[in-house]
């Protein structure tokens, strides 16, 4: 079987010479230039994205932790502590609120210009949430 395949392959390889008559299919210089430009633009776009991500990774992590705590603390009704189902639902709602705040924060760039009093509030919320954790 292997020998038969080898023979067939040799025969096909010989016959492939027929396609040499096709010659080259030259590419227009404009097309090649457009491909080169598209590739360069894609590389630049990826680099920008990577640099942006590197720059934001640290602040975003901290902001996410703070906002999660803030969202949780401000959305959690006092009664939910005793009802696990409601508590879980509230937790989900708070998480959604945090995501939304995180998104707003990133889009509006508050991390660059947040007032001290605003940050104090966030830290107080974090403390409050930690207290809640301790009581669970």
């Amino acid at each position: 079987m292997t020998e038969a395949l080898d023979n067939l392959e040799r025969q096909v390889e010989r016959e492939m010479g027929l396609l040499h008559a096709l010659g080259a299919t030259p590419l227009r210089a404009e097309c090649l230039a457009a491909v080169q430009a598209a590739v360069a633009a894609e590389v630049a776009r990826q680099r920008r994205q990577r640099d942006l991500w590197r720059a934001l990774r640290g602040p975003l992590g901290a902001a996410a932790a703070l906002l999660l705590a803030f969202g949780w603390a401000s959305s959690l009704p006092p009664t939910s502590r005793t009802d696990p189902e409601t508590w879980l639902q509230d937790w989900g709602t708070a998480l959604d609120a945090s995501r939304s705040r995180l998104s707003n924060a990133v889009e509006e760039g508050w991390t660059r210009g947040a007032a001290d009093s605003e940050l104090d509030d966030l830290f107080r919320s974090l403390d409050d949430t930690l207290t809640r954790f301790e009581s669970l």
Partner: protein
Amino acid sequence: MDVAGLDDLLRRARRRDPDALSRLVELYSERVFGLLYRLTGSREAAEDLLQETFLRVVRSIEDYEHTGRFESWLFRIAANLARDRARRHDRPPVASIDEVDVDAGRRVPAGDDPVAHVADGDERRRLEAALARLPDLDREIIALRHYSELPFREIAEMLGVPLGTALARAHRALVRLRRELGEES
């Protein structure tokens, strides 16, 4: 380009070195374009897909593990794109014979107006038309062999068919081409 040179180029390309990626485009564009042109039957579609092929290379080259089969990877991307396009357009990958005939034999040296160039041989024109009439998979196999220069074993693997099937289809296609060109002895 020798193996060491290609290895180095690919290492740099994986780090998103623009010069290395540009060099890859330069090295492979013509052959990939040739394949795409045969599979789509349209210069315009082949040009679009050529660009898309290299954009995919840039986006996924980090995931490519160099095992000496870059060409197989590259041509697989191109062939898949041509197949996807054919499916999207709900038509055979190759355009009508008329369309192929219009393009047949057109040689377009860099910077020249393609329309200014006329067919450079009846044989070539007839071969292109006969090629366009082949069943899709048969044409894909021999076009891949011709343009990618990959061995049939890799082409069979790429297309997910046994080697024997790939060879038998290639053989059938070549016999048919010879017959249509009146070269059968």
